[in-house]
């Protein structure tokens, strides 16, 4: 069968867990922005890759047969033939039906995972799309209206749509834990204090490569050049203009701006779900706390995702929530 893209905003791409082993050749890992939601969706669908949906939204249809889909991510407006569904759900898409995901009250990314496999070639061992280098996914680019994705071993999902539930999903956070360094000595202690006590606004100039933060500019002690070295996801670089850049899934493998800190791994999925215009703060953690949080996250992820019947209360609650926030959705444009 085929999944047909009826419409797609900018930044909708195919992702798997990411490209491993090629950092040394300058190849970006890519992979999901929110690894927790990605794993929930692909776990529920029993597959390895998913469509990552940006705030631009997507509309899908099934052709030549029905297919199960698991959806999980930020609090998106999910509808099957116009009927609202929980933002995390599993369903069967039959030919003639139309599934839509649009930006909802919160969250920046959602995942649509098929009960089946994408029939696409792996590039350097992965399906993950990195649009800047044109690698992976469908021809190395974002998905667009008219694209048809061939699905192998397609299976149906639940007959009636069901809510997808995991205790660790959907937590909205405003504060994110960091480990200082490695270049914290490039900043005066007052500058580090400013970094830790300020409220930072996520800039509209943010994308899968980096989240740019607006706030008080952070001054360097020895200029903004260091000898380029490797970059991990969550690294917070301070370029010459003093505006922090949090490096995300499409980060460059190396860079030459000093890194004041790193966001701990357990807090990266929730950070990825922040939207331009939203405010965040950082708090300092120890290495022990970061590893403990990582262990707790790994335990939570090991618990299986539950499928639950959609109750009328749940649906009306969702509708009420949308009515309350309807006025603030949709004025954001994603910059690539």
């Amino acid at each position: 069968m085929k999944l047909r893209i009826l419409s797609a905003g900018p930044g909708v791409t195919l992702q798997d867990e990411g490209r491993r082993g090629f950092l040394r050749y300058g190849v970006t890992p890519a992979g999901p922005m929110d690894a927790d939601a990605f794993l929930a969706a692909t776990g529920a669908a029993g597959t390895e890759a998913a469509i990552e949906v940006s705030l631009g939204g997507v509309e899908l249809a099934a052709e030549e047969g029905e297919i199960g889909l698991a959806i999980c991510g930020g609090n998106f407006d999910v509808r099957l033939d116009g009927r609202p569904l929980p933002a995390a759900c599993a369903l069967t898409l039959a030919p003639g039906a139309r599934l839509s995901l649009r930006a909802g009250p919160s969250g920046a990314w959602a995942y649509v995972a098929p009960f089946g496999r994408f029939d696409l070639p792996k590039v350097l061992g992965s399906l993950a799309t990195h649009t800047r280098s044109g690698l992976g996914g469908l021809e190395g680019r974002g998905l667009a209206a008219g694209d048809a994705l061939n699905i192998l071993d397609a299976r149906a999902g639940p007959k009636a749509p069901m809510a997808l539930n995991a205790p660790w999903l959907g937590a909205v956070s405003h504060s994110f834990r960091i480990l200082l360094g490695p270049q914290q000595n490039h900043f005066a202690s007052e500058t580090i204090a400013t970094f830790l006590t300020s409220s930072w606004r996520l800039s509209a100039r943010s994308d899968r490569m980096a989240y740019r933060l607006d706030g008080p500019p952070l001054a360097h002690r020895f200029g903004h050049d260091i000898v380029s070295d490797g970059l991990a996801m969550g690294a917070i670089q301070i370029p010459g203009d003093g505006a922090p850049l949090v490096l995300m899934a499409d980060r460059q493998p190396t860079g030459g701006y000093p890194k004041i800190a790193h966001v701990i791994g357990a807090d990266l999925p929730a950070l990825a779900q922040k939207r331009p215009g939203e405010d965040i703060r950082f708090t300092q953690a120890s290495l022990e706390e970061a590893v403990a949080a990582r262990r707790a996250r790994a335990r939570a992820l090991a618990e299986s995702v539950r499928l639950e019947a959609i109750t009328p209360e749940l649906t009306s609650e969702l509708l009420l929530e949308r009515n309350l926030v309807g006025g603030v959705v949709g004025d954001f444009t994603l910059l690539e």
Partner: protein
Amino acid sequence: MAGYDAPRFLDAGEAALSIEFGDSVDAEINARVLALDSALQRAQPEGLIETLPTYRALLVCYEPLLLSRERLVALVEAQLAEAPLDRPAAAPARWRLPCCYEGECGEDLNEAAAGLGLTPARFVELHAGAEYRAYMYGFAPGWCYLGGLPQALALPRRATPRGLTPPGAVLIGGGLALVASNPMPTGWYVVGRTPERLFSPSREPPLFIAPGDVLRFEPVNLESFHALDARAAKGERVAIREDGA
């Protein structure tokens, strides 16, 4: 000996460790990075995810729930004690890369030359007259970082990154040089273009210049650039290997 007396172990989050051997671009420091990288590649301890050698540091990505930081550091120290990390690598290959500095190829050349107080002609003379060592790949596919930029061409990176580079960009910034295959935004200056495809995922191997190799840039005019570019587009290697291998 160049670099630090003992390597520094610096956390890059809880799942990556940067092992620094110095804070400068230096062939000896880089050789130690490459040697530790090979040693860890051979050892392959459980929980080691990936290593990324750069100029003066090795980034070790690991899973701390499988390999504790303490055990990783002990393992690295054992490797450093066992293996002499400054042994010379195999004789490096020597490459001559065509480079066009003219017109739209050297889109930031005038700006960079002015920033250095040089005429564009003098800039090209100095840039093409130098011999470069390939230190590492990074930033983007086939972005090959080079040492050996003449001191007179040391210009800081831009305060704010510029837009997309052209394919095959030859760049300077932060006192360093690089030659880059894929277009990316950058804080460096585009001073020329090579028609060579440094990275091609469908070619085996996708990259042919290895860290440790020696490079020179050979100035070509726009007409030659376009002719060589057409040949490179068909899969031909237009870089010339000078050591006869």
